């Protein structure tokens, strides 16, 4: 119903929260602060909390976006911008498609008893157990020689959708189960067929689950490296691929890595902020008596 009367949390709660937040954030703060340092400062054994921040690393990472040419950069990697766009397109598309297909399948597995349900559901889980490393070569071969979609964005989206579907299907099942079935009954009485019942009634009510699944799916699609590296060609490469590709064995440019890592983290964090707003209480309050 409405906000329940809860006792204000005590200082212990805040202390614990602070400690946990510190642990969660520590490495990230380190990453961000190192991204503002010169390499000498990062690796110097005497480094301290005090340093003069520099945006050089960001200039390097983003050099092809800058209107000017920073002098410390001897060579500008022109692909970052394009990769960013690719990454965005791929992850958003993959997330959207995965969620839609996944929740539909989950719904079927939860609400219908039909021939092949057990097998379907277990197989779904099974395909998630295969490490991508072994799938790499066959996927590349099939995409290239059979489907002819190597190097295309939708080729990558396809494999991401498939990879994430099992997760989405399984996780959403347990959220769909919790939707009071009476609501679906009501919708059917109101003349909705199964699809409209699902999209108009069930889907809005599993928003917390969807949001959680979306965060996760987006994250995988955004950060995935292995398959993207194999399937993407020069024009469809994603940001993680460009990052990894710029690492050398000879000289880890910590500053630039941290800067790129920070930049790379921004879109999924924004996505998380938006999505986690959907994880809200009491979606089904007031629906039924029971």
């Amino acid at each position: 119903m409405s906000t329940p009367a809860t006792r204000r949390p005590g200082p212990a709660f805040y202390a614990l929260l602070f400690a946990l937040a510190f642990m969660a954030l520590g490495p990230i703060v380190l990453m961000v602060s190192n991204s503002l340092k010169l390499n000498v400062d990062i690796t110097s054994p005497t480094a301290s909390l005090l340093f003069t921040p520099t945006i050089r690393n960001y200039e390097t990472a983003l050099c092809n976006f800058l209107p000017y040419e920073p002098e410390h950069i001897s060579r500008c990697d022109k692909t970052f911008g394009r990769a960013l766009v690719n990454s965005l397109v791929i992850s958003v598309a993959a997330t959207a498609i995965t969620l839609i297909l996944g929740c539909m399948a989950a719904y079927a597995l939860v609400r219908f008893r039909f021939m092949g349900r057990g097998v379907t559901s277990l197989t779904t889980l099974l395909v998630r157990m295969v490490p991508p490393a072994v799938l790499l070569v066959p996927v590349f071969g099939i995409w290239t020689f059979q489907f002819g979609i190597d190097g295309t964005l939708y080729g990558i989206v396809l494999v991401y959708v498939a990879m994430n579907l099992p997760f989405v299907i399984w996780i959403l099942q347990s959220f769909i189960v919790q939707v009071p079935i009476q609501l679906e009954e009501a919708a059917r009485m109101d003349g909705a067929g199964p699809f409209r019942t699902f999209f108009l009634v069930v889907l809005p009510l599993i928003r917390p689950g969807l949001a959680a699944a979306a965060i996760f799916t987006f994250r995988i699609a955004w950060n995935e490296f292995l398959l993207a590296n194999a399937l993407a060609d020069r024009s469809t490469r994603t940001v993680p691929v460009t990052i990894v590709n710029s690492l050398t064995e000879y000289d880890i440019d910590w500053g630039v890595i941290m800067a790129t890592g920070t930049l790379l983290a921004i879109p999924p964090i924004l996505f998380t902020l938006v999505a986690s707003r959907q994880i809200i209480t009491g979606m089904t309050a007031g629906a039924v008596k029971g």
Partner: protein
Amino acid sequence: MPRIRFDRVEKSFGRTLVLPPLDLTLEDGEFTVLVGPSGCGKSTTLRLVAGLETLSGGEIWFDDRAIGKLEPKDRDVAMVFQDYALYPHMNIARNMSFALRLARQPKARIDSEVRRVAEMLNIAHLLERKPAELSGGQRQRVAMGRAMVRDAGVFLFDEPLSNLDAKLRARMRTELAEMRDTIDKNMIYVTHDQIEAMTLGDRIVVMNEGTIQQQGTAEDLFANPVNRFVAGFIGSPAMNFLDGEITGDRVAGDGFDLLLPAPLARRAEAAAGRRVEVGIRPSHIVLDGGAPIDLRVVVSEYLGAQSVLVTRCGAAEMRAEIASEDRIPTGETRRFGILTDDIMLFDRETGARL
């Protein structure tokens, strides 16, 4: 609008048999009220008509169409759920208009229809709220409104007014009665409220443990119950039952000995010596006149114009309904009169009325 016919309909949940084979016909345009004790299968019966449960056996016919396998949306049925089942993510207006929107009705029609029904239900000021922000009775009214905006052939109401106050309930009753009279729908209505059952139903069907005990008009059931169950179930306060034995044209038991009226005596003749239960309605126990009986008044329950006296006749409890003006002190034993013309006799084993 269809005539609904249950043809040996069965329903069980797992091993729990809820409806043993059930036959029932609901005529076109009829307002049928289902009553029966909690858990007797009323909701299940409605849900079978709606298509929300699969039949375990038998068939349901809408006119001459077997609908047992049809999807709910193809049955043209509107329903008010006992547990409301409101869409928690839609506001009230959208809850009520959902079916119309699905049917792609013109927006203007939807709005005016929703407003009309909402006003009738006193919830017009709540249209923007979500179900979670409503009181129990308001939710129930939304559930009601959701069915009433629709133009279905069959309406199913599952205790739609149980959480409303008497006044609103009376008003809703009137609305429903009007709806029953003006539009030609087939309506099935489940209620525990005797007044609703009696005032609304063209026909009342009394169920117990999944089987139909009796069906007929309110007067039929009240005046001529076929068995002890119906007699005890219909009428409020409920009929009193006294264990007795028939000897000749009298029936006697612990604390009473009554002369049976001629027609009843004739019917009872066959049962001479049999152990029976004597049914006496509280309204047939009067202060003056009738066959005398001594009752000890235990409690007097004030109900407004009437009061109910809880009394003891031997070990048995007897309730009598009297006008509140006639104050009876409790604790005393007093002579009352029984209008023996109206008493009923039931076989103590089978419960059948003699």
